[in-house]
């Protein structure tokens, strides 16, 4: 293994990757889009495991989202680090729960119920609504986002917390109380409780240091204040921190994320600051346009010096429907531009799930299959739905010929992980599943997608349905089942299509700007580039006109645009109508998106150079 990673590491570039790989202490890596940060990170982890970790210690690799975590695990697996006992890979929430709260919280009085579970989405909403009702009319217009923001900003429950905003303080207190009354904690609790444990108890820090002398944190720009405080405490306690992130891609302000925290970290004297300055993904002109689009220009250069992307604006005067029609046409056309390119190399990006409905509807009408990621998607990707797709993939793809299929042992491994806590006889369950999969594979021509998925759920998954921890994930499984029904939106999806999820598939990506972070596509087709749609405008009651949102908000939207722009390996197409409709249905002409204006300016400058 040692040789393998060292050999790989020889290929790292001198524009930041090597420096990050060779850093000896705390390190803040500022890595822009397509800079190969995950590759560097994975090799860095291999190096630390090889050189700095004894057999009793672990390296913790912590990410913010499940998706990043999966990606990281896959990449670690590729260099042979999948089952290393000295490696912990997980989301920040699972780290807090499994490494801090569940082994340690019971040792101190944390006002936690004796047994507790993680609140489901519905339970969170119920508690929030109960808290609002309890307070009365004054809380009528409070949003979860605002409450979360307050909760994650005023960390100490002191006078400042109580008095800064009495309403929200009251709301937070009541919300938490309702959760506790039902023996529940939510995801933010995991972080707040962990922070409290770490702050107040030196022995907790001792234990973390003994177990995890090195902690690697990916997507640091998504962290909020409480996690940042935890990190600082751990640094001061002697834990080595490697933080990776991109300030320009901080788009989760509504969960309390603060991009400047990564900057703070990188400016500390006990941190080495490394900037990655080579973009492997995008064409030269996109790299030049995007560098400095949000903040200061970093001097990023493109690896693909001879690749020039088409950056095109398309005006659709008939509105959003036309934008969608044209976007789909553009997608189909783009596939033909490059040999070997398939629909999965193309993504249509849109501002919200409602627009997603239109795109999905029209794509279906064209007979296209798609992979949709937004809140209104037929189902969300989670470990359960992904597992069902994998099963479909195994029975429909020939694992010997195409490098698309999954192996049976991976399916068994995942299945075991899913059910082992909830079933009494794991071996029997596995045996039944394998029997079922083999049978299905043999009579493939006789079964429908719906019957396969239904049987899988009813006969092999039923134990999960009864379990509280699985409620949220399982509801997606039911949504999946429903959408595959005769009258569901995915009724025409074959088993082959359902399982066709690996590279070079025939599913078009439909995705919101937000969800596209971390992804890359050959061609990005973005719609809704109109002032009032993206960005949304706010009505100024004194000036009787629509205005851009406040600077901080607009800056976050600008980062979101930056994310969309930098997803593309090749071309980017923007669709616009130059007007928008208010919530009352009035048509307002406020022109193309301000971000296109800004892009224009840069294009002109670039032309001048």
């Amino acid at each position, binding site marked *: 293994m040692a040789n393998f990673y060292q050999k790989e590491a020889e290929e790292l570039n001198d524009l930041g990757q090597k420096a990050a790989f060779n850093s000896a202490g705390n390190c803040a890596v500022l890595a822009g889009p397509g800079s190969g940060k995950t590759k560097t990170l994975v090799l860095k982890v291999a190096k630390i495991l090889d050189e700095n970790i004894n057999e009793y210690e672990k390296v913790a690799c912590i990410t913010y989202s499940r998706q990043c975590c999966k990606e990281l695990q896959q990449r670690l697996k590729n260099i042979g680090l999948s089952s290393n006992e000295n490696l912990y890979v997980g989301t920040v929430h699972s780290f807090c729960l499994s490494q801090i709260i569940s082994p340690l919280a019971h040792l101190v009085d944390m006002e936690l119920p004796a047994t507790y579970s993680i609140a489901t989405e519905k339970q969170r909403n119920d508690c929030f609504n109960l808290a609002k009702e309890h307070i009365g009319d004054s809380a009528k217009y409070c949003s979860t986002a605002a409450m979360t923001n307050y909760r994650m900003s005023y960390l100490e429950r002191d006078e400042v917390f109580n008095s800064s905003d009495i309403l929200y303080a009251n709301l937070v207190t009541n919300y938490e109380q309702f959760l506790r009354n039902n023996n529940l904690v939510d995801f933010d609790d995991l972080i707040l409780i962990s922070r409290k444990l770490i702050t107040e108890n030196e022995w907790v820090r001792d234990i973390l*240091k003994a177990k995890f002398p090195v902690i690697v944190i990916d997507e640091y720009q998504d962290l909020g204040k409480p996690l940042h405080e935890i990190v600082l405490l751990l640094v001061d306690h002697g834990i080595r921190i490697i933080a990776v992130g991109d300030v320009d891609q901080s788009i989760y302000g509504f969960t309390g994320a603060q991009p400047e925290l990564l900057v703070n970290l990188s400016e500390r004297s006990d941190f080495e600051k490394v900037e990655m300055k080579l973009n492997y993904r995008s064409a030269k002109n996109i790299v030049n346009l995007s560098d400095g689009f949000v903040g200061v220009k970093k001097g990023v250069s493109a690896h693909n010096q001879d690749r020039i992307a088409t950056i095109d604006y398309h005006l659709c005067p008939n509105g959003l429907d036309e934008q969608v029609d044209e976007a789909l046409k553009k997608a189909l056309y783009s596939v033909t531009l490059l040999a070997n390119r398939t629909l999965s190399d193309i993504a249509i990006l849109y501002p919200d799930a409602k627009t997603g409905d239109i795109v999905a509807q029209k794509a279906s009408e064209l007979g296209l299959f798609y992979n949709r990621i937004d809140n209104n998607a037929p189902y969300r990707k989670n470990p359960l739905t992904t597992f069902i797709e994998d099963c479909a993939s195994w029975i429909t793809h020939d694992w010997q010929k195409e490098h698309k299929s999954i192996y049976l042992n991976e399916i068994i491994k995942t299945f075991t992980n899913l059910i082992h806590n909830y079933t009494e006889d794991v071996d029997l369950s596995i045996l039944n599943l394998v029997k079922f999969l083999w049978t299905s594979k043999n009579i493939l021509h006789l079964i429908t997608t719906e019957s396969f998925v239904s049987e899988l759920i009813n006969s092999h998954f039923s134990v999960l349905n009864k379990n509280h921890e699985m409620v949220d994930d399982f509801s997606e499984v039911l949504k999946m089942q429903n959408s595959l029904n005769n009258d569901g939106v995915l009724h025409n999806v074959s088993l082959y299509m359902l399982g066709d999820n690996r590279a070079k598939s025939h599913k078009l990506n439909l995705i919101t700007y937000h969800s596209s972070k971390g992804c890359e596509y050959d061609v990005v087709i973005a719609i809704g580039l109109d002032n009032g749609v993206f960005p949304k405008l706010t009505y100024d009651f004194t000036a009787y006109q629509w205005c851009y949102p406040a600077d901080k908000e607009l800056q976050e939207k600008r980062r979101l645009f930056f994310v969309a722009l930098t997803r593309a390996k090749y071309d980017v197409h923007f669709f616009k109508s130059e007007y928008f409709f208010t919530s009352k249905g009035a048509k307002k002409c406020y022109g193309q998106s301000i971000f296109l204006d800004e892009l224009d300016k840069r294009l002109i400058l670039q032309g001048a150079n």
Partner: protein
Amino acid sequence: MIHISRIKIENFRNFHNFEINTNRNMVIVGENKVGKSNLLFALRLILDPSLSELDRLLDIDDFWDGLEGRKVGSTIKISLDIANINSSTSTLAVLADGLIDVQTHTAKITYEFKPRDGVTPNSINDYEYIIYLGNNTANFIPRSFRRCIQMELFHALRDCERELKNSNRSPMRAFLDEVSENLTEQQKTSILSGFQQTQTALDSIQSIDNIATNINTMLETIVGTNHVSLVDLKLAPQDINKLVRSLQLLIDSGVRTISQASTGSANILFLTLKLLKLQHSIQQGDQEFTFLAIEEPEAHLHPHVQRLLFDYFYESEANLNTLLTTHSPHIASSAPLSSLIVLKEHKDGNSSSTYGYSLASSHLDENDIEDMSRYLTVTRGEILFSRGVILVEGDSEEFLIPELAKKLGYEFDKKGISICSVAGTNFAPYVKFLRSIGTPFTIITDRDPLNLPVPIGITRIDELLGLMIPAYISGVNPEATIIIAGQAQGIFTNTQTLETELINSPVLKIIICDILLEEHGDRLHVGPIINCWKLNQVPVDMPSLLRYIKEIGKGRFAKRLSNRLPTGTCPAYIISSFNYINSLT
């Protein structure tokens, strides 16, 4: 330093519901078959990396017999609390998930042999074992645990000579292998050429060659050429590593091999090498912490050496906890009191089970410990092994009481009852000590009136009762109540002293006077007085009697008296005491 602070065992072999608090080192004493080795095996189930998967899968016979028909369905559970896990970052990292107490940094590890989840157990085949940290049964010990914390057992019936010779298992192996690894090419060449030279010299001797030829010829005659591996007669294999490994320890300036050494020397050598190897592997980082268990170290060692060796263990600073099981009072008596663990069998339902008593959590204060340690050292720790103890004040009792008992037909030696003189009247530390190790006892003490309003002996009993009965308040009860309460607790007293009690018997009076006359008969004034007592001409003057006895020496007097004791002359309070202890053992 990290150490086991509590052991809990349920339903395993001798143990039904066993729980003790422990200290850094443990000296486990108890009668044969009480479960000393089983206690060690229980620890090994959790700690010993050399146990196989099959060893950890127990059998129906490993359940406590008192379960009778309920063995299938029951669970064997063994748990250890390990304190101070923060002594090193490695042990902290490995054990932190098992943390159960923050102040003492204590973690818990549990071994469970239980029916498989969700299966209604019909036989032992439906059982599995798990080892987990803390209170969460899903929290299995990490793989690194086995390397970090280890337990090694030296069996009672170890054959040190063979262990030392067996090159794979000899503790020397690690050292020698390190030597060969670090040899320079030059050294290797010079060793091999020197070796070659000797070998060539030996090869040139025709008679050696003949031996090999004879063997080979015979082999071929018996089994034919196809099945034979032909042999050579050589000094050692010609591989540098094997050559170094063939180095052996010699004694007596290199004249004799270990096989010629006494078993005792071989044992010491073996233990020494094992210790060196442990230190070596801890230094190499192969392991962090070792629990070293030695069964019956006394087996082959001279008592004097036993003490020296184990004093070394107790004071060792190494990352080591020592656990000994022993029958030897020599070792038991020199062990720090707080490390003693006494195992005793008690009735438990229709069966019996073993209970543990440890002094790690007893109420002995520092002075008590000093008193008891001194006593144990002087008497060689006999009372640790006793089933019952008769506590007496001094030498007189120590001599007379066994004789009195014998005359009454009691066989205390056979029953394992010891008589223990506290050399004075300070019974308190003994009472606390015996209560801590669960040994029943009785106290025979004098009333000692001394013309006080409350006799000093009664005050003594009153105070002892305060130690023995939780709700008892000393200093408020009348004498009669104290005496009755004392008798219920096994404390018996007389009206004055033992000697005055004895002289109340007409038969004994004559014998006592005879002894006194043998010593004092020639004295002008004293002789006649004693004669008058003997002839019942005047009543015995107690203070004078005691003075005369003292002049002979109480012990000497008692010894002489004990030789002449007639049957049926035992004072009633002593008989009560005998009956009391006899009924409890």
